[in-house]
């Protein structure tokens, strides 16, 4: 398993080309995001439609503190911009995002379900609009143009933006980032697993199942809901910082509502509350658009000699169809959580009887 994962970038490179390694890297970022959201939605049952805002907070955190950009806004203070090490910024980005998570959580404590979804959706959009407009009076975010020339991530003094030769094996930049993301994904999986099977995880699930009963059992629902928001947001912030370093460029359009919905769909499609399911959902939904992008146009050219449907609209069509099929046949996700699977099994037994 580990060997297969370590060889994955080379296999992808050899079979599909270098561009696909980059796509796999992005898939890993999505997996981290989806696992973070899984804490909020899957464990604590709080429907959050603005999750991408925390990704944005993390990304802009590193974009501002690891690029020449701030030289424009504060030429005297930072003549060359700010160039902090990624390893200092990332924990701070995670903490800041966690703080934003608690900030979002605090006013929404009384809300549940649809109402919570609407408020979080608003929060996500507000964050994006802020980023879009904070280029005046002080040019903080460079508005819609985004921030570019972000420093690449360094590991042990080696910039991951370069090609490295180790033991006469050539590691291109995308391969190096793959290993970094793999390590972080492993860490996120570890944290999720440990949380799931703990006193805190059980309390979250109690809140998801019945908040009133949970509070009557002595669970401080306010603190635990804030904790869920903050923990989920921290994962989002950390992956945002990774994203900024990897891509070297951030702009508000990466943090649209559609992205929040995509991450939520990964969680729901894979199986809410189940780590393996969420990973599967992340892989499928991150790769699907790329597969379509590379196959739809050539296929139509061969079949009809011209392009009838563009991949983008076909993607939405397939996506919608997939979700409807899911709702009908696998309502708890492709890989439902342990409990939900048992639930479905017994329901089927009951139906047959």
């Amino acid at each position, binding site marked *: 398993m580990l060997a297969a994962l370590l060889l994955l970038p080379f296999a992808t490179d050899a079979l599909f080309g270098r561009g696909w390694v980059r796509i796999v890297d992005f898939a890993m970022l999505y997996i981290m995001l989806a696992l973070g959201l899984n804490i909020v939605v899957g464990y604590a049952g709080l429907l959050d439609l603005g999750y991408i805002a925390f990704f944005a907070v993390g990304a802009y955190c590193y974009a501002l503190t690891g690029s020449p950009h701030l030289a424009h806004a504060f030429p005297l203070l930072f003549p060359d911009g700010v160039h902090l090490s990624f390893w200092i910024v990332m924990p701070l980005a995670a903490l800041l995002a966690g703080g934003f998570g608690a900030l979002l959580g605090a006013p929404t404590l009384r809300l549940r379900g649809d109402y919570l979804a609407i408020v979080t959706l608003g929060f996500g959009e507000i964050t994006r609009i802020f980023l879009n407009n904070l280029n005046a009076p002080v040019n903080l975010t460079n508005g819609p143009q985004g921030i570019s020339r972000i420093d690449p991530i360094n590991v042990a003094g080696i910039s991951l933006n370069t090609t490295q030769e180790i033991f006469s094996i050539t590691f291109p930049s995308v391969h190096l980032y793959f290993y970094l993301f793999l390590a972080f994904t492993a860490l996120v999986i570890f944290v999720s697993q440990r949380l799931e099977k*703990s006193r805190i995880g059980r*309390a979250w699930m109690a809140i998801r199942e019945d908040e009133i009963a949970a*509070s*009557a059992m002595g669970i401080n629902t306010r603190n635990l809901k804030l904790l869920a928001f903050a923990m989920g947001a921290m994962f989002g912030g950390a992956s945002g910082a990774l994203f900024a370093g990897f891509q070297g460029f951030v702009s508000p359009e990466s943090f649209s509502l559609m992205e929040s919905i995509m991450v939520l769909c990964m969680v729901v499609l894979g199986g809410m509350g189940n780590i393996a399911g969420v990973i599967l959902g992340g892989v499928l939904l991150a790769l699907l658009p790329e597969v379509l992008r590379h196959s739809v146009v050539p296929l139509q050219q061969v079949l009809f000699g011209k392009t009838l449907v563009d991949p983008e609209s076909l993607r939405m069509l397939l996506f919608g169809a997939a979700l409807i099929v899911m709702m009908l046949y696998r309502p708890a996700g492709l890989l439902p959580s342990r409990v939900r699977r048992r639930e479905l099994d017994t329901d089927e037994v009951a139906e047959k009887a």
Partner: protein
Amino acid sequence: MTHSPSLLQLSSIGKQFGGLSALSDVSLHIQRGEIYGLIGPNGAGKTTLFNVLTGLYQPSAGEFQFNGTRYQTGKPHVLAQAGIARTFQNIRLFANLTALENVMIGRHVRTRAGVFGALLRDRTTRDEEHAITVRARELLRYVGIEKPAQTLARHLSYGEQRRLEIARALATDPLLLALDEPAAGMNATETASLKTLLQTIRASGITVLLIEHDVKLIMGLCDRVAVLDYGKKIAEGVPEEVRKDPAVIAAYLGGSDD
């Protein structure tokens, strides 16, 4: 902490919902170690009183004293911490979690592990987790749930669900166990074994507050009974006296719609 004989003392508790007065001027006290019954026609305010006691509602007037501490406005988790555990009239289990997990969640308030404990899983946390599981299994046996501990709560029979709620409440190590119609919908055999269970619980030193419609159960089990009607306490005393009280007879036979 003062060890007065009363565990719980209610002083002139009132609760208004808009113009409707659900409780007015209810005062009563419950001694340590007794089984105290609360009866009254539907809509008399019994569950409202429960919700005030367990912090789900804030009383509009009055206050109560539990185990030496005064509460005017309580929060559910604070009162659970103080030692009041409850069950619900319409069962509120964590339906999609297992029977064992339901009881384990009850231990939340008496255990400590936080995020760092969960992540590091150090010795203290592992010991605590182990103790939680052991205690939860014990409690499942104690209330007499024979089905595997891994059964989902919603797949238990009705009687077992009622018992599981009691096990979950007991897991919080309560001083006062407040049961909202635990025998509702049970058949005679189930009610009889519930009665034995409640007597065992009382014998273990836990005070029991019981709302019940089953008059036979109340009369055979309770040391003292209070009767509520239209949000007011109309009688209190040992079951035999209360049963003969003209006001109680009027409340049950006439006056009320049901």
